[in-house]
């Protein structure tokens, strides 16, 4: 009988330690390929088009944000044109007269139309004096109009041609909602100027 493996605790520990320490077992050859493949997979995520959960959430959030900003940007771009005009043209008493008489109203209103850049700056200064005139509707507006026509006859020569062209354009092609709305709105400003011709 030959004793092969230690049968007492004193020998056991050192026996296992010395026996198994430093032993190497060759893993299957295919294992490296698996490791390499999974390492490649881990590297790919760094590519631009790979979507992790976090990235997809970030991108969707960014898209919503951009959409929201775009929406408000468009909305605000519409508003100033609407707001600027109404500030000067609050009076809506004589809408019908405006439409019937395109000639008189156009002369004064054309100055903001022709040079839109100056329009914003001129509104605050020029239009505010006109605003009190509008409140009195018929009598007072005459004075500012006369001043405009006398001071700038050159503008009066230019403007009537423009005003005549515009109604033609309206009838022909300009159908979009914004244009209709703006023109109607601008028309609503005319009542101020209509009485001047009398």
């Amino acid at each position, binding site marked *: *009988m*030959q*004793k*092969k*493996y*230690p*049968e*007492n*605790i004193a020998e*056991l*520990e050192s026996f*296992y*330690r*010395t*026996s*198994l*320490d*430093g*032993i*190497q*077992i*060759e*893993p*299957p050859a295919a*294992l*490296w390929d*698996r*490791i*390499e493949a*999974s*390492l490649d997979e*881990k590297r790919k995520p760094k590519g631009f088009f790979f979507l992790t959960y976090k990235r997809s959430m970030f991108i969707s959030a960014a898209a919503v944000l951009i959409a929201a900003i775009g929406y408000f940007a468009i909305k605000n771009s519409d508003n100033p044109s609407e707001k600027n005009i109404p500030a000067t043209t609050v009076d809506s008493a004589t809408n019908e007269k405006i439409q019937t008489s395109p000639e008189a109203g156009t002369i004064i209103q054309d100055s903001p139309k022709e040079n839109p850049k100056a329009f914003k700056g001129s509104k605050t200064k020029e239009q505010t004096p006109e605003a009190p005139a509008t409140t009195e509707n018929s009598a007072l507006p005459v004075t500012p109009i006369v001043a405009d026509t006398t001071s700038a006859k050159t503008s009066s020569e230019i403007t009537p041609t423009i005003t005549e062209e515009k109604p033609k354009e309206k009838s022909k092609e300009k159908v979009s909602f914004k244009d209709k709305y703006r023109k109607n709105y601008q028309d609503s400003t005319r009542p101020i100027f209509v009485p001047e011709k009398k």
Partner: protein
Amino acid sequence: MLVREELIHKSISGDQGANKAIYQALAGSLFAICLRYTKNRAEAEDWLQESFIKIFTNLKNFKFEGSFDGWAKRITINHIISDFKKKKNLKNAYDVDDYTDQLGFVDGGLSKLEYEDLIRFINLLPEGKKLIFNLSVIEGYSHKEIGEMLNINESTSRAQLTKAKDLLIDIHKKFNLVHAEKVS
């Protein structure tokens, strides 16, 4: 086998050849460690694969202070322990797969047969005792370290180790007896 610093730097910079060289240097000893903790060969391979992935992805965290081999070994053992904790099915295993037939024996003072015997004996231990026996006797961790690794008391680690040793002595006796009968 020692892994040179040069090789590690190359691997960090993304050199695939360096990765493979590191793998070849460490795979044998790390696989031997994995095989001590399971009787299932496929599980040992999975551990080795996942450990190497951890080693390569955490390579930039290696501080070049201790030995690289020891660092890699620690990653492997930590991975095995975390897998043990995940499964928590520390069942009493007294049957052993014949995975040793498929092993390629590379190095060591033992004959292949002896090695197979020892691994089989260790794997006959219940999972918890096997873990502590390996960590304490073969890996050389103190009971304090083992307690921290496994979130158990030092005294529990000691008690489990003595029980593991008792079981192994019992196994040895039975094996020796059977072997002696065969010889005679």
